[in-house]
């Protein structure tokens, strides 16, 4: 689960990670109130969406008067912001964060992620703040300092020294401030079951202070049960409605651009099914994992969600029945076709436990647009042919 910048900064404040002062606003009036409360004569109006690259997309603007704050808030609130991370459809802005201006001398990058190979968190820092870190990693990897931290010992002094010497911070007061900053960020990472925490840019002010000018955080979904305060930050307007609805029914759904709807048990086989459709010349319309329980209700819900996409021209149901028996799934599919009006051809491949019985059930039901397939390849070919109207 991801959260907004203003929410990340609330967490930073709780842990004493320095950030500029700021207030979130839902309307231009609230934005004006926020700017007045913050005081000063320069403010930043920042669109709050779960995606990077907001500045380039026109979602972060500088205001030099209260009138300008109102004007910019009015402009940004409700706009559809397109960045390299939102996809071409963009995201609608529902909130802006009004922040006091900061005296930027240097821009750095600081992040904490899991190093899968080392199986421990790694702090990444770079003097190349304000740029995409992926780009820095690709072009000038020597400019990224990586310090892996064994959670058994936690953040030690030497970790901090590796960071500041790696970044070339020589002033002793600045070294102390940066190490303190990084150690607090690491504590947040561990305490809150964070998946990714990124500050880009982390700025050094003219006075030699370090401030988190941005904040991006994602959390381990499996650990949210023990962080109700994080769960409370969920913004459902940021989630794809179809993906969310699927999740509520125990399905895992991701929409794609193609024409062939897929319903599969297991994430790996679901991806493998999409790959096979592609391999035989078709395009998958979605990823859908029905999980271990392919009941009539879950299959019906799956059909419903898949068919909401008007591009879908055929559906490929690919189930490898392990513990779940195929005959039960076949009955589930038949019931589901009664619950949901399925007009497109449905190609069904059931293999594994009781597969012959399942084929028999489908044959006897004799529903015109339900077509059996013998194996994965056969099913994919038939689904592609059906989508082209050639079956």
């Amino acid at each position, binding site marked *: 689960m991801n959260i907004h910048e203003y929410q990340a900064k609330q967490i930073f404040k709780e842990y004493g990670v320095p950030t500029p002062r700021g207030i979130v606003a839902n309307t231009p009036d609230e934005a004006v109130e926020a700017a007045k409360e913050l005081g000063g004569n320069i403010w930043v109006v920042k669109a709050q969406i779960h995606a990077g690259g907001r500045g380039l997309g026109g979602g972060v603007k500088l205001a030099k008067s209260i009138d300008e704050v109102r004007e910019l808030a009015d402009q940004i609130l409700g706009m559809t912001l397109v960045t390299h991370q939102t996809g071409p459809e963009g995201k609608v802005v529902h909130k802006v964060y009004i922040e006091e201006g900061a005296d930027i001398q240097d821009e750095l990058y600081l992040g904490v992620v*899991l190093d899968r190979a080392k199986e421990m968190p790694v702090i990444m820092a770079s003097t190349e703040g304000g740029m995409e870190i992926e780009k820095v990693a690709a072009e000038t990897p020597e400019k990224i300092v990586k310090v892996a931290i064994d959670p058994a010992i936690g953040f030690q002094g030497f970790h901090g020294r590796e960071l500041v010497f790696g970044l070339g911070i020589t002033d002793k007061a600045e070294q102390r401030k940066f190490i303190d900053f990084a150690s607090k960020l690491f504590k947040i990472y561990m305490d809150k079951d964070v998946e990714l925490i990124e500050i880009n840019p982390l700025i050094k002010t003219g006075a030699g202070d370090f401030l988190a000018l941005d904040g991006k955080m994602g959390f*381990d979904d499996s650990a949210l049960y023990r962080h109700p305060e994080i769960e409370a930050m969920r913004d459902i307007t940021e989630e794809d409605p179809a993906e969310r609805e699927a999740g509520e029914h125990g399905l895992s759904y991701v929409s*794609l651009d193609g024409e062939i709807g897929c319903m599969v048990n297991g994430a790996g086989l*679901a991806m493998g099914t999409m*790959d096979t459709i592609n391999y035989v010349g078709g395009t998958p319309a979605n990823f859908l994992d029905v999980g271990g329980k392919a009941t009539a209700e879950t299959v019906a819900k799956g059909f419903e969600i898949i068919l909401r996409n008007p591009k879908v021209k055929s559906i490929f149901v690919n189930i490898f029945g*392990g513990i779940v028996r195929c005959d039960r799934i076949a009955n589930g599919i038949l019931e589901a076709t009664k619950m949901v009006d399925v007009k497109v051809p449905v190609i069904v491949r059931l293999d594994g436990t009781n597969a012959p019985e399942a084929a028999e059930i489908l044959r006897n039901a004799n529903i015109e647009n339900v077509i059996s397939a013998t194996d994965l*390849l056969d099913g994919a070919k038939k689904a592609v042919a059906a989508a082209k109207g050639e079956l």
Partner: protein
Amino acid sequence: MSILVNKDTKVIVQGFTGKEATFHAEQCLAYGTQIVGGVTPNKGGQEHLGKPVFNTVKEAVANTGATVSMIFVPPAFVGDAVMEAADAGIELAVIITEGAPVKDMMYAKAYATKKGMMTIGPNCPGIITAEECKLGIMPGFIFKKGNVGLISKSGTLTYEGANQVVKEGFGITTAVGIGGDPIIGLSYKQLLPMFENDPETEAIVMIGEIGGDLEIQAAQFIKENITKPVVAFIAGQTAPKGKRMGHAGAIVSGSAGTAAEKMAALEAAGVKVVKSPAEIGKAVAEVLANKK
């Protein structure tokens, strides 16, 4: 021969009396697995599925001589259960549970390693040595005995792959579902040499997916150390960047961990890479024919 488990392996089940554990332990017993007992706190002294229940793993090990544990406890207790098994001297823990917090696994894996305990999973179908020992939730009947070893991140692709190998007239020595979480136990790199050293295994099927770099590491390892033919499939060639595909580990970030990158690395290591899982069976038949 086989790897890791066989008909003589003595197994306990942690979370033994739970609903899922009961169902699957029953299936494992029917397959012939030597489940010698189980652990459920506060149910020690009872009998379940005709086997003794203990309060702690230490007691279970002391009374049964079990060396392997199959873990079915709920996600919030997986870290604890793995560390308890390691502390009790278990040699291999097979963690079936899905949805364990990554941080818990980070601590548990580090402790297991320190204690010399191997782990498989979490969030995996388990391990099966065909017609000898099934430890997990896979449908046993599709795994006919044979000469092909199988390592897979995905559950249903394990079944798909094994099924095709069997339909081509071959069979499986041992199949291991390693799971797709960010932190997992035994991976390709540890399992490949086991299959290389197993005299019965003549070919290896390796099924991976997008995210992480385990397959890249495996490719390097195969190039340098594996002489047996390897067939590989990487799921997620058509997955969009940055989207989660069910498994927490399968996130493509930047260029690292894409299917294309992994497929190229494996091909360069001499592995027969297929573009669809539907081609696994045929590819195995081909590499085994070439060998003879």
